[in-house]
């Protein structure tokens, strides 16, 4: 008998996906199913937290934005 699992499908670049998998690897409390290189299904109530964590992770890794230029 097939099963239906409630969740949120996330589609993104492979690079972003690998970060998501990495975030999940700490407690395994985000991902329901790892579908393919660009897709994962995540628990509905965790999406917000995941977005936040992803944001933090990206901030660490991105070079500071060049906001110079004469005003």
């Amino acid at each position, binding site marked *: *008998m*097939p*099963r*239906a*699992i*409630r*969740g*949120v*499908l*996330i*589609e*993104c*670049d492979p690079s*972003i996906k690998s970060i*998501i998998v990495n975030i999940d690897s700490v407690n395994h409390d985000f991902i*329901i*199913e790892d*579908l*393919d290189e660009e*897709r994962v*299904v995540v628990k*509905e109530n965790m*999406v917000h937290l995941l*977005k936040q964590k*992803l944001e933090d992770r*990206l901030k660490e890794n991105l070079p500071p*934005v060049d*906001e110079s*230029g004469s*005003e």
Partner: protein
Amino acid sequence: MSINPSLHLAEYLERLPGTTFKKLYQQPSTTFAIFRRMLPHLAKTFVMRMLFLPHPMTLTDLDTWVKPEAKRKKDQSLSILRSLHIVQISAPSKEKPQEIQLMSNFKKSLRLALTGGGNHNSFGVPSSLLVPPEIDLAFLDRYARKKWEDVLHFVVSSVGYKSSLGDGSGPNKGVKELLIAGRLVDRRPNGSLGITQAGFTFLLQEANAQVWTLLLLWLEVLGNNKSSGLDPVDMLSFLFMLASLELGRAYDTNALTEERRNMLPSLVDFGLIYIPQHKRSMFFPTRLATTLTSGGNSLRTISEGVTAATQSAQTSQQSLGPLGGGGEQQAGSVVIETNYRLYAYTQSALQIAVLALFAKLNMRFPDMVAGRLSRASIRQAINFGITADQIISYLAVHAHEQMHRTAALTNKPVLPPTVVDQIRLWQLENERMKTTSGFLFRDFTDDKDYLDTARFSEEIGVLVWKNDHARMFFANKHEQIKDFLKTRKRAE
């Protein structure tokens, strides 16, 4: 994109129980206001035709009033009339045809409102005192506009644009708390205030809809707070009464009940009424109050709001021609260069505040502000729930005449394509992942089972992703698929 549903007057009214309507319809002014504002034309016609009928009429007779092709409109009108407890339709039975009639209290009050008579005082009691000469229409309009702009500024200025007048000029504390309670602005973790998506939608409304939004929030907050001693039903009918008052005329506060007198300070805060400092026993309704029930404007969504802003800017441009620029509607004032610099020839603090939502403004002159678009500023706007397309269309609509002229000469688009593309790219950058909530279907017993179900969900348009190899698919709705699986199982 969720907006507090109670922002709509119609929805607010529909949620009220029938007994509340009985109370509301005791006041001729309320009855008349609901008749004017809430009903579509066909429903108004029905009401007017039934108003002086001595007996109920049959539904079949009503059908003969309407052309057969307008059946849908008729059904809609009837359902509105029923949901507002204006008509009564008898239950269908074999012996008697179905009959329709107006609710007796609605009928009585509307008759009174139209023909006059009675001593219900529901249209206000004019003050007998001498009116101070300085209070005229222009004064009241200025006063109401100032008060209302204060409210709007508070909503936008929460973004970081500080009004040059300082914090003391903002709306009253009560109003601020109301806006926060209504989630039009939000307390950010760092303690400052920020506009919300609902707040942005609010800004794009017409003034009339804005006033109603705020008033309904107010009713809701007071309704939840029983200790306030104010009855939301009475307040609502008081608001409807205000709407029927005459602009520029003084009314007697002593003729009001005590509860209603207690409401006056809040209404002063909103700019709906004006009470002279030295004559506390009279009040003047402002244009904000007297236009409450005119026009059946419903709330606009963000996109409709932008469209409306676009249209009004276009029409004012056409009507004012090359002279337009000093007009109230700040059409054609924004210049944007390929280096993301932005200049706006405007004095309107409100427009400046709107620009500050998505641009970093760093200079202000008497009639112009200068700033630039940056990754951070666009990102901030997107966090407020404003989309790149909205920003682009705002810029396009408000583009300065010079931009149009250059564009026409060089045969290029009005906005520099680099800027437009970059705004879109900045948005994409912030949306690194696309999320779709729904259901993952897996563990199918065999290929056929999987293929049939997947095909079915594709046909009904709920399939988002599938992988034939792993026998899994993702759908954004599951009810129909569940039924499909059940019927399949039974058939086996």
